[in-house]
Every structure is written in structure tokens, then in C-alpha cells.
């Protein structure tokens, strides 16, 4: 999925998203018309705690920067705190530019208007590639490179590389191999955290026997479904096949896909296992799929919900407390190994300058990540961020396991695919898996649909 983290939060409020979309045209017009030349007074007042200094930044008094990202709500507010710290240290003035999904098209219109932001946070690997192909992205300099080498595992560095050159700095990561559960439901049912797919099925049955529907699926948002598939596929078919399928080197009609869909149908195929049945799930947006799992006391609509660490942002909207009322376990292994599917947002420089390079350097340092880690709802791929910076035990655990995974993770498959296949509502993989959720018996038809759409989107 694309969206992953990015859209998941864009989607935290449908209203916001709709409003943003409705304004998209108007914004693109007006923003590109008035390029970001607002001269700056520099008031570096930050509400942030004293952060340790591990990186030296140049003095940039009078410089101005624009940073574009799709983040909204608390996520945007938290990121702005990080930018404030940068302003305080350098004297530069940084403006946050709210963007819409897909950000690559948003940037396209800004660049056509002649006023691109200096730095954009790109949520997809494919988007970095596109930005480089179109000549928008500028390589990062030696200072940022040095921070990357010090703080990031090879795998995270490589994700930001195109043709051997470093363009992206992964500032934010998402662990998308998690299943969140309502502890009350598990307690009432006498269920335990499963380790394998078989355990997961028997846990689901136990919860069903106790009178609660086991799973909540946010099927109205196609990306939650692609994430389900990716976890099963990565664990069952293994990383090699996963990489091949991500590049469309093997077809979607491959037997390994048949097997993964068959496995998936063991849950999706049981109307009683999914809150609201398939048709109900297809009208449940991701935020509602989380909140309905953690509201309703002893009788929530469902006992478990699958998605990444960003689920906690939505749990925060309920009365449930992460760590006590809401707990999490790793996606159980279907094959030999537990899957670790991740996503992330990378900072990419679009207008090269000393200030832009300095900000990229800062974002690659543990200083920046620590500030946002303390504020919660955030996970950094930076291995030199002290786990104790995260506000609760669940987040500390997720951060540790992400760093411990080293290079043993795979980036979200649909985020690697072309937008038309992996990231458009009502199209491609999103739509095919939604149809599969509606009719889980039609594995062959689903595969043919996926292959036809993939062939059109990849152009092979």
C-alpha cells in the first residue's frame, strides 16, 4: 500500500482528507502562484525539552526553507517541534507546507509552478525513484551522509539510494507487522497471544466462542488489505519471492500467491470472524476499524485489529490506554519466519542549498528523532535513538524490535509498486483485494485481476 503511514494519517479524518482534496486544485494554483519568499524574522522559541547535541549545524541566519509532507493533526504538530529546534540551533526559518496524497503529483504541480519546496517527505520508495527520474531530487551532501553512516543500518540507507547515489534520508519508520488486541476481550475469553498462524486461528476461534467477533478489518481503505497480504506473503513465500513480486518479476498468477490468498481466506472467508461481515468491513475506514476494537467495554465490535504502530494514534482517540487496555503482538509466522514489513518517510532535497543540506543532516541525526520520539506516535529507524526516549513500554518494544531487525525487513510491497497499482483507491491491488474480501472463494479470479492490473501499471 502506499498510504501506509502517510495516508493512514491523512485518513485519520475523512473530513480532513476530503477537505484537502476539494481544496487541492485551489491550493495548487494559489500556492504555486505565491512562491515561498516570505522574508523571515527569526524567533526561535521552542517548547521542546533540552535536547542533547550530537550534530553540529552551520549558522543560517536569514535563510528560509520549506518542507512539504502529508502529515496532519498531532503528527504535523510534533514534526513542527522538530523544525523549531532546527530554527533555534541555526537561525534559519522553516515553513511547513501541508501536501496531499499522492505527494509526488502534488510536487509535480509545485515544480510546474516554479516554486517547489526545499525538502519533501516522501512516503514511498517508488516516489523517490520517480523524483530522481524526473530530475527533481538532489543528492545529499557529505555531512548528512556521515550522519546516515553513523546512525542507520545498511538496509535503511539503501532504501534511500537510487543508482548507488544517496537521495533519501529515512526520518520516520513504520512497523506494519503488528496485531493489536483488546486485553479485556482476551482475558474474558482466556486467549493467549499467538505465535504462529495456526495459533492465530485457534485464538480467533476462542474469541469467537466467547461471543466477540475476532477481527476488525478496515476494508474501505484498500491499503490495510494489501498490508495483510504482504505479511502473509513475506512469511510464507520468503523474502526472495517477495522482492520478485514487488518488482513484478514473477506474475501474480504464481502458485505462491495462490497459497498466500488461500491462507488469507482462512480468516477473510469466515463471515463470523470479521466485524460486520465482509460487506460491513468494506465500509469501515481504517480509523473506525481501530476505534471499534477499543470501545464498547466488554463487548467491542471486535477483539483484534491488524496494522502498524501508527494504530496507537487512533487508539488515543478512545478511552483505552496503550499498554494496559490495548496490547500488541507481532504478526504470527505463517511460514518459517516472522514477517517484518515496514514503511517509512524519507526526506528528499528538491532545491539544493546549504540550509536544505543542514536540515537533511539534522533529520538524519538522533537529535531530531529523539525530540519526536518523546512526543509519541513515532518510530525512528535511527539506531542511535535511546529507546528510553519513547513514552511507553509498547513503543519502546516496537522501536527495539525495529532496530534489532537490522536489515532483515522488507519495505511495504505496494509502496514499491507504481501508484496506479499499489496506491489508488478503487484501482489495482486495493480494488482486487477488496473484491477478494467480498468473495474469498474466487482466488483464481483475484489473481487474474491482480496480474492484469499489474501488467498495465508496470508496463510489462
Amino acid at each position, binding site marked *: 500500500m502506499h498510504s501506509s503511514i502517510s495516508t493512514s494519517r491523512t485518513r485519520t479524518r475523512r473530513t480532513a482528507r*476530503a477537505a484537502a482534496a476539494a481544496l487541492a486544485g485551489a491550493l495548487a494554483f494559489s500556492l504555486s502562484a505565491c512562491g515561498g519568499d516570505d522574508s523571515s524574522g527569526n524567533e526561535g522559541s521552542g517548547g521542546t525539552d533540552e535536547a542533547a547535541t550530537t550534530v553540529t549545524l552551520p549558522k543560517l541566519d536569514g535563510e528560509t526553507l520549506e518542507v512539504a509532507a502529508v502529515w496532519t493533526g498531532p503528527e504535523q504538530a510534533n514534526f513542527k517541534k522538530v523544525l523549531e529546534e532546527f530554527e533555534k540551533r541555526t537561525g534559519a526559518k522553516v515553513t511547513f507546507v501541508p501536501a496531499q496524497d*499522492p505527494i509526488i*503529483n502534488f510536487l509535480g504541480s509545485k515544480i510546474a509552478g516554479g516554486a517547489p519546496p526545499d525538502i519533501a517527505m516522501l512516503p514511498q520508495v517508488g516516489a523517490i525513484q520517480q523524483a530522481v527520474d524526473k530530475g527533481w531530487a538532489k543528492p545529499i551532501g557529505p555531512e548528512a551522509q556521515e550522519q546516515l553512516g553513523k546512525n542507520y543500518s545498511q538496509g535503511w540507507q539503501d532504501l534511500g539510494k537510487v543508482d548507488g547515489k544517496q537521495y533519501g534520508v529515512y526520518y520516520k519508520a513504520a512497523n506494519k507487522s503488528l496485531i493489536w488486541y483488546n486485553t479485556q476481550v482476551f482475558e474474558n475469553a482466556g486467549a493467549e497471544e499467538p505465535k504462529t498462524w495456526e495459533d492465530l486461528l485457534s485464538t480467533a476461534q476462542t474469541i469467537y466462542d*466467547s461471543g466477540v467477533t475476532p477481527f476488525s478489518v478496515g476494508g474501505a481503505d484498500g491499503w490495510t488489505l494489501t498490508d495483510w497480504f504482504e505479511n502473509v506473503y513475506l512469511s510464507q513465500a520468503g523474502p526472495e519471492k517477495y522482492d520478485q513480486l514487488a518488482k513484478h518479476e514473477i506474475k501474480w498468477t504464481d502458485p505462491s500467491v495462490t497459497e498466500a490468498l488461500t491462507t488469507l481466506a482462512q480468516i477473510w472467508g469466515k463471515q463470523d470472524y470479521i466485524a460486520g461481515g465482509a460487506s460491513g468491513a468494506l*465500509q469501515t475506514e481504517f480509523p473506525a476499524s481501530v476505534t471499534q476494537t477499543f470501545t464498547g467495554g466488554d463487548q467491542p465490535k471486535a477483539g483484534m485489529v491488524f496494522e502498524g504502530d501508527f494504530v496507537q494514534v487512533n487508539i488515543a482517540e478512545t478511552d483505552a490506554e496503550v499498554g494496559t487496555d490495548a496490547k500488541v503482538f507481532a504478526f504470527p509466522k505463517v511460514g518459517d519466519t516472522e514477517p517484518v514489513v515496514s514503511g517509512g518517510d524519507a526526506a528528499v532535497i528538491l532545491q539544493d542549498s546549504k540550509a536544505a543540506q543542514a536540515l537533511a543532516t539534522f533529520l538524519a541525526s538522533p537529535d531530531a528523532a529523539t525530540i519526536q520520539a518523546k512526543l509519541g506516535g513515532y518510530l525512528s529507524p535511527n539506531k542511535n535513538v535511546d529507546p528510553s526516549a519513547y513514552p511507553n513500554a509498547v513503543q519502546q518494544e516496537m522501536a527495539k524490535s525495529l532496530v534489532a531487525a537490522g536489515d532483515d525487513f522488507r519495505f511495504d510491497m505496494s509502496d514499491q509498486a507504481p501508484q496506479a497499482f499499489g496506491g489508488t483507491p*478503487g*484501482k489495482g491491488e486495493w480494488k482486487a483485494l477488496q473484491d477478494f474480501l467480498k468473495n474469498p472463494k474466487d482466488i483464481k479470479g483475484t489473481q487474474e485481476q491482480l496480474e492484469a492490473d499489474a501488467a498495465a501499471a508496470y508496463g510489462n
Partner: protein
Amino acid sequence: MTGTRRTVAALFLLPALVLLGALVVYPIGYSVVRSFYDQSGDGFAGFDNYQALFTDDGIRTALKNNIIWVVFAPTVATALGLIFAVLTERVRWGTAFKLVVFMPMAISMLAAGIIFRLVYDQDPDKGVANAVWVGVHDTFAEASAFPKAHPGRESPLTVDQGGFITKEPVRLGEPVNLPLVGVAPDQMPDDAAKAVAARPDPGKVTGTTWQDFTRGEGVGTLGAPDPSELGYPGMKIEAVKDGKVVASTTAADDGTFSLPAAADGAQLRLPADNFKEPYNGLDWLGPSLVTPAIIGSYIWMWAGFAMVLIAAGLAGVPRELLEAARVDGANEWQVFRRVTVPLLAPVLAVVTVTLMINVLKIFDLVFIIAPGSSQDDANVLALELYRKGFSEDQPGIASAIAVFLLLLVIPVMWFNIRRLRREVRR
């Protein structure tokens, strides 16, 4: 005309011409040009984009839905507006009523979309449409007490005709256990009492049916009532021999039941109507109903607009014509049908045509109300234009859709302008 006058005229026209040119003519012209170029905008693509317009499945659905919209939304809104206008004329509180019907016009399409997204929510506890529908349905068909109840592990029961039946025949004097699981504790009937094992009775078939699930411990003792487990009061039990029901009974509060000697050697069945799922209402935003549902929300907004215009037209209808018809012995329906409507025809046509233009460009309601999973089924041209242009990065095809929409609107606009001219001439 002298030269100076010409210059002055040009000078006065200039601001309007510049604005029109920059904001209307140039974008239209550029869209037409862009529609003949490929995705990147570098290569000439001829009519490829227009060909895609009529071969792409998504665009074809959009086209089909647009036709449905144009046919139904304006006519229904106008018809409702006409009825409201004629009726409010005769009610004392007509103005207040008009105000209420007109009020949705004060809301933006976006807000209306969000409201109706909630109205059509599948969950009857949230969506008012389904709450009403389920309320009506449940008045006529009552829900059962034990939805979702099902046999647990190693159960003596098996599925039969939507209910459950014992695998083995039962014998006199041997108590039968009919354990099930899966009824949520707060959905258990209030009179459910602690389940007890049935006493053997040599002249009868006795047994217990209960929820074999202990909170926090799972099943507990499998197939036998644990201390805190509850019986299923009112559960219907049938004794079946060779496919025929020979005896039937219902369970007591503690889940115990007894059947007469005739049940000896029969299989016990818990028939399907014990387990009927609660009715969950209509799938308003599912693939089949989504377009009518969204048209419904559009009518909610625009019937008021039609009503106000028609009411204004109605005020201009000469009263004496209506009076004359009544004096001639026409009844109210005939007056409405033969006098009022023909006199209002020009107004009705203007309202319908205006709404048609409005409907051709419908976007916001569809974009907001349709959930991602049925956006494809609810698709309309303007939405497809947006999707092609802004999320699929296909500006060529998007421009072609824009040009096509323009072509669709032109005849309707031409009709409107011609009518306007005729009005002026009169």
C-alpha cells in the same frame, strides 16, 4: 462609430476580456490541446486519450452513472419541488415549511456529504437510514435470542438445516448435553439461570442446553456445565425421527428440558429459528445501492432550490385562470394537472435544465459519501477526471474527460440560453 469611441469601448471591455481570457478561454483551450498529448505532455497522442475514454472500464461505469444521475436527480428534485411549492401555498405555516426545506441549500456539498456518510452507515446504531429500516423490519420479524451460538470443540452437535442436531440418537433415562458457545454475555436473556445437569428420568428424555463457556477460562470442563455457566432459557428443542418431528419443547431458565417417551431413539435438533442473525439493514453504500443513495442526498439538498423557484413561478400564475377552472367544475387534481402545470412549464424546464448542468459536474457528494471499496461503482465523470488527473497522473486522459464533459454541457446550455432569449423578447 468614430475611432475614439471605438478605443473607449475597447478600453472598457478590456478588463473583462482579459479576465475571461485568462480564467475561462485559455484553460479551456489548453485542456483541449492537452487532451491530444500523452501522459508526460511531450508526445502527440492523437485520439488515443479519447479512445481510452470509451474503452476504459472505469470511465464507462462513470458514463453510465452520469446518465443515471442526469435522468433521475433533476426530475425527482423538480417533481418534489413542484409538490412542495403547490402544497405550501395552501398551508398556514407554508413559509416556515419552505424555510426548512430550503435549509439544506445553506450547507456546502462537502458538509452534506459528511452528514450522509453517517446517515447511510451500515451500523444501525450509527446510521439513521438503517436504524429506521431495521426498526421497521424488526416490528414484523422478531430477532432470535441466540444469534451466533455455535457448537464448540468436540461437540456432540452437528450442523443441520441452519440449526444443530445431535450426532447420536438419544435414549430414555440418559440425560443429554447440548452445549453451545458464542453468545455474548450481555446478549444472554435476563432470565438465564446457572446451568445444571439434568436428572435422569426413566420415562423421559431429559437434558440441558447451555453456554459451555466460562469467562476468563474458556470452555472450562468440556461438555459439562461449570458452576458459573448459564442455561439457554427458551431454546427450542425438537426430537426428530426419520426427518419427522415427533416431539418438541423449550428449555427452562437453567437450560434443562424434558421430552416425552416418544422421543426415545430420536435425534435432538435445535432448529434454525433459535439462531437467526439480527437483521442488519440494507447495504446502502454497497455496490448496488450506492448511486441511488447518493442521488437521495443530492435531492435532499436541491429539492428546496427547485421549490423556491417554482413557488416564485406559481406566484405569477394568474389566479383567475384557476378560479375559472374551478367554476367550470374541475376538481383540484384536474386544476393542477391541466392548468397549473402547463402554466408553470417554462419554469419547470428552467429548473430541470439548471439542475442537469449542476448534476453533470457532480463530484463532491460522490467523492465523500462512497467508501473506497465502492467508489468504483459510484464513479461519475468528474470524479474519474480527478482520479485520472491527480492520483493516477494521467493528465492527458483527464483533459479528454474534461473536454467530453464540456461537450455534454454545451447542448443543455444552448437550450437554456435560447429559452432566456425568447423570454427577453416576449
